[in-house]
Each structure stands twice: as C-alpha cells, then as structure tokens.
C-alpha cells in the first residue's frame, strides 16, 4: 500500500518523462527505448522530490481520509559548453584573421546555460500546467495542482562545463487513505552447526534476520 504522495510523485515523473521528446532527461523515468534524438542536449535533467506535507486537522479527518497538502521540489539542471565554429578553429590552414573572427564569435557557456535553463523551465511549466494534465492522469485524486515558485541559481563553471541549477515548487492536495500498516515479520533461522569431532554438539547460532 502506497500513499497518495508517492503515486503523485511517480505520476509527475511519468508526465515529464512522456513529454521529454529528447529535450531533457527526467531522472527516474522508465524510458522505453533510446535513440539519437534522446541524447540531444543530454546534459539537461529534471528530478522530482517530495519535499513537504501538511495535514490540517479537522473533525472529519480524525476518523476518515486525511487531507494532505503536499509540496514537491523539481530540480532542473543544465550544463553547457562553449559553442564556436570549430571548422575554422581546428583548421590548420586558417588565417589569424579567420581565427580571430571565430574566437570572437564564440558563444559563452554561461550565456548558453542561462538560455537553456529558460527553455527547460518553459518545457516543464507548459507540460505540468497544461490543462490536460490538471489531474496528473489520476482522476478524482488530485486537486489544486500548481507550480507555485521557480528560482534560478547562479551559473557555475564546473569542470569543462558551466552548470546551472534551478528549483521549482509544485503543490497539490489529495486525500490519504489510512489503511494501517501491519509490517512484515522478519525470518528467524534457528540453526545448529554439526561439526565433525565436536562431541558436545552444542555449537549453535541463532540468527535474527529482519
């Protein structure tokens, strides 16, 4: 038995994964195949974390399903390299003037990372806030889904790429059915080790294997 927030977390991952179209990667999404287009700009990724839950107490909730206001954190990451005309820069016969022009025309990785993040946020926002996804494909189960906040970090030159991370806050509410948890008993192995030459044969172990 899982709780609704786990179902909603997985529904979010599935929804974002279905909408990737090769433009980013959703961490945890069970993809059906891999193709060249899915590797395009493969350094962009989206992760979904259950972050916070509130359970307002009411007369009904004390003996019925429990209302759960839940928040999920979406972590968006992009990484970019410098983009330049390498056909000129790697050409041994290029003239200094051609090299100068190619170097000057190169695009800074920080700028590219920032633009790439804007695009990724657009993709995520338009996917989640699409009216067709209002119930996250979980009919009658999810209410008031909303992307409440987005915050972009600072471009961070790390290694040979510039990384940029951003966070978005997704909120919704659902009713949790409290079915109880019976737990699972651990197995107990009661073994006696019979050693040759051990006349006493009292060498035994009791292993508790939860």
């Amino acid at each position, binding site marked *: 038995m899982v709780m609704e927030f786990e179902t909603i977390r997985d529904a979010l991952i599935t929804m974002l994964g279905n909408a990737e179209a090769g433009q980013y990667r959703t961490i945890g999404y069970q993809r059906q195949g891999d193709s060249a287009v899915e590797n395009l700009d493969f350094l962009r990724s989206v992760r979904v974390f259950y972050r916070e839950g509130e359970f307002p107490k009411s007369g009904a909730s004390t003996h019925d399903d429990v209302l759960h206001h839940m928040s999920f954190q979406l*972590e968006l990451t992009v990484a970019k*390299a*410098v*983009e*330049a*005309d*390498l*056909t000129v*820069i*790697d050409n041994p016969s290029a*003239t*200094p*003037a*051609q*090299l*100068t022009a190619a*170097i*000057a025309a*190169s*695009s*800074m*990785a920080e700028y590219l990372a920032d633009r790439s993040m804007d695009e990724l946020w657009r993709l995520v926002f338009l996917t989640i806030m699409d009216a067709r996804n209002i119930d996250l494909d979980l009919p009658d189960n999810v209410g008031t889904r909303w992307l409440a906040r987005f915050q972009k*970090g600072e471009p*961070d*030159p*790390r*290694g*040979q*790429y*510039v*990384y940029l*991370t951003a966070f978005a806050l997704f909120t919704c509410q659902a009713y949790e059915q409290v079915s109880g948890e019976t737990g699972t008993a651990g197995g107990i192995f009661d073994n006696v080790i019979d050693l040759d030459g051990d006349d006493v044969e009292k060498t035994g172990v009791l292993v508790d294997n939860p």
Partner: protein
Amino acid sequence: MVNLREQVESDLAITLEGDFKLPVILISPDGETQDKSANDPTADLVGHVLYDTLIQNPDTGAEMVVHKPVVTLRRSSLSRIPQSGEKWVVKIPTTPSYSAAKETFFLERPLEDGGAIGFIRLYLMRAIQEP
C-alpha cells in the same frame, strides 16, 4: 648566483616541461597560434595537463565526475601571457599521450596567475561545434 625564485623558475623546465610534459597549442584572441616554446623555438610548447576529477555539487550534494582539464605552463615559454577575461583557444591531447590527437577548449574562466614563481594555470572549458 641566482636567487631562490630564479632557481624555482628554472626548475619549471623539469617539473612542468620534463618527463610529464604534454604538448599544448595556444591561439590568442588575435588569432596568433603558439605551438613552440619561446625559450627554445625548435621545441614544442609543453606543460602539465590534468584531466578529470570527482566533485560535489554544492546545490544538491550529489557527487559528479567531471572532466576538468587544467593546464599549467611555464610563463617564460609563452610569447604572450593569457590574461583573465580574454578568450583564448587551448588545444591539448585527448589522452595523456604525446602523439594523441588534440581537442579544442576555450579559456573562459579566470586563470591562476602564479607569476611569483613563473607559471600560469589555465582552467579550460569544452568547446563544441555551434549549431
């Protein structure tokens, strides 16, 4: 008799340009290519090249293996010293082999100017073909 700093600088011929050396090519913002040492125009420009490292993402705490090429050169071997803020192209071998094909990086991050003892350290950014 040389002073200690001069001694350290001359030792760079061993520590940076000795047995661990790898060839490096620099292209300045004005398109001038340097692939020979200013100290010896018949010798290749060489230096120390380190490739990758394990780092921690400060935002998430996740560990990432990143390629982080760092090139350390002897300043006196350069005909022009890169300055922070300038766009330079740096080409280094794809593998730690003297004869390996070279790949292209940009110098976009601030460099470490070890001018006091005569070296310069360059942190490289990968370059890819623009669309």
